[in-house]
């Protein structure tokens, strides 16, 4: 039986005046940024889709495959022990990032999508039945919508949605009304991947609990960008993707409270998730391994641990300060430099993460993104996996610039200059 090395989690009290991030210096940690695209410096503004990876993470993947590669929890030999130590040690690192005391509550998944599906299949199929209510929001990523649709269809349960205001803020008054329906579960995003809205997750969790609901939070756009303390938030389930948090693709996390995880049936059956297997029945392993059937992406989770350390070393408060500054700068500069640009989402940087969706009237976002690419500027164009939100805002599609620790004001200036070229080319 493997145990997880547990060390006390440091509680950091930072001085109110924090030194700002030196994004220019940070950029040197990200080898991919040192390239030109179509003859221009690469300006990567699609970190909400996936972040770039620091050298430390890339090196960890390389070192794992060169030196430690072996299956985990199985071999009685040095390599397997090193692989297992790295794999389980990463769990401790991620626990620290989320201020989780017990690393056994960290379940490795492939991404936030799998984390949410795990809850929908394992918890949902046991606890949701005909007529039960699940409350979601209009701003959810498809990953926090479709799994609940599947569950609701199977169980004949009802989905209700917290609407948004025109500037992309959840209608808390309507949430109060929906809570009177006594939902079994309330699931919402911490930060909107499309509008950047930072939701008041602590307050919403408290009210949901008072109404008797469990709370699942999609933290895919929060963990990589701002301090997340799952104890302070008080939710029951918290999901995020490693690849958006400077980690490798294929790494992801579900955190849930121990008593919930222990009471939940397994998600997938197979090796590693069992204690004893007989021909007609099996006993489950302890958490977290009960939910980790089959050989996992060992290297990816080790890499995510390194990414978690990198983020903690940067300081999540400082990263949040940096992105707040960038959002404020973008919301100020873009309308001045690019007359006529339409911006969406809350205009107050205090409640907005590093996500800036926009449209140039008369130019389809695909075309805008294509022209920006000619100047080395990478933005996302489309519906960003939030089709209902785009429908609500009566938008076919949007272009989206999104930020990370390596994003600079120069990047936003490059975006503004590129958009001027878009306007010139299309004559708008």
């Amino acid at each position, binding site marked *: 039986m493997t145990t997880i090395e547990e060390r006390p989690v440091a509680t950091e009290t930072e001085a109110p005046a924090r030194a700002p991030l030196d994004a220019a210096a940070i950029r040197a940690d990200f080898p991919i940024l040192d390239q030109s695209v179509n003859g221009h410096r690469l300006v990567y503004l699609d970190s909400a889709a996936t972040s770039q990876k620091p050298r430390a993470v890339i090196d960890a993947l390389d070192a794992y495959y060169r030196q430690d590669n072996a299956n985990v929890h199985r071999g009685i030999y040095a390599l397997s022990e090193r692989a297992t130590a790295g794999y389980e040690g990463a769990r401790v690192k991620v626990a620290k990032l989320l201020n989780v005391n017990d690393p056994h509550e960290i379940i490795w998944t492939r991404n936030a999508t799998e984390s949410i599906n795990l809850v929908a299949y394992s918890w949902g199929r046991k606890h949701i039945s005909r007529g039960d209510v699940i409350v979601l929001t209009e701003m959810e990523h498809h990953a926090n919508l479709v799994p609940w649709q599947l569950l609701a269809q199977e169980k004949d349960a009802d989905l209700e949605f917290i609407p948004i205001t025109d500037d992309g803020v959840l209608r808390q008054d309507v949430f109060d009304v929906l809570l009177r329906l006594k939902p079994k579960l309330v699931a919402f995003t911490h930060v909107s991947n499309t509008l950047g809205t930072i939701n008041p997750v602590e307050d919403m969790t408290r009210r949901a609990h008072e109404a008797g609901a469990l709370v699942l939070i999609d933290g895919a756009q929060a963990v990589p960008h701002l301090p997340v303390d799952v104890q302070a938030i008080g939710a029951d389930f918290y999901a995020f993707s490693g690849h958006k948090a400077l980690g490798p693709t294929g790494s992801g996390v579900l955190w849930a409270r121990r008593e919930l995880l222990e009471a939940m049936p397994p998600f997938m059956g197979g090796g590693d998730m069992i204690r004893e297997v007989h021909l007609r029945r099996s006993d489950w392993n302890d958490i977290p391994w009960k939910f980790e059937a089959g050989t996992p992406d060992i290297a990816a989770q080790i890499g995510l641990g390194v990414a978690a350390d990198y983020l903690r070393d940067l300081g999540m408060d400082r990263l949040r300060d940096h992105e707040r500054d960038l959002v404020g700068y973008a919301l100020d500069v873009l309308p001045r430099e690019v007359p006529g640009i339409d911006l969406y989402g809350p205009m107050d940087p205090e409640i907005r993460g590093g996500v800036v969706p926009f449209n140039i009237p008369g130019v389809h976002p695909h*075309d805008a993104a294509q022209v920006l690419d000619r100047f080395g500027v990478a933005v996302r164009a489309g519906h960003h996996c939030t089709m209902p939100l785009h429908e609500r805002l009566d938008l076919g599609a949007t272009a989206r610039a999104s930020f990370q620790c390596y994003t600079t004001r120069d990047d936003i200036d490059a975006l503004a200059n590129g958009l001027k070229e878009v306007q010139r080319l299309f004559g708008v």
Partner: protein
Amino acid sequence: MDDLYRDYILEHYRRPHNFGVLETPTATYEGSNPLCGDRITMQLDVEDGVVREVGFTGRGCAISQASASLLTDEIKGKPLADVSSFAATDVLDLLGIEISPARLKCAMLSFDALQHLLDELGAKPLANDPA
């Protein structure tokens, strides 16, 4: 600077030909590209086996709008048999620009709609993947 956004492409985008709703359509099809949220509604008015009128509405990028404009120009007044023999590569020839794999769906949105219309009219059965 641009191989993609040539003047005639932008001209078709700004002032697409055959943009509008037909009064007496024989067949109507609504298509969409779920990747980018683009939509197209295409209508044919067929009389004696000939496409008398064709119209389309919807929203989309310059590539999808220009290709719809060019394609509808091409098939207007032609016998259904000729229209049925029109292939996806012919649309790319009409556009006359290099289309990257990422934009192929945009270029093929109107062609895809046309295949559904031809299927509905019994002129050409729908292939599994018309694009």
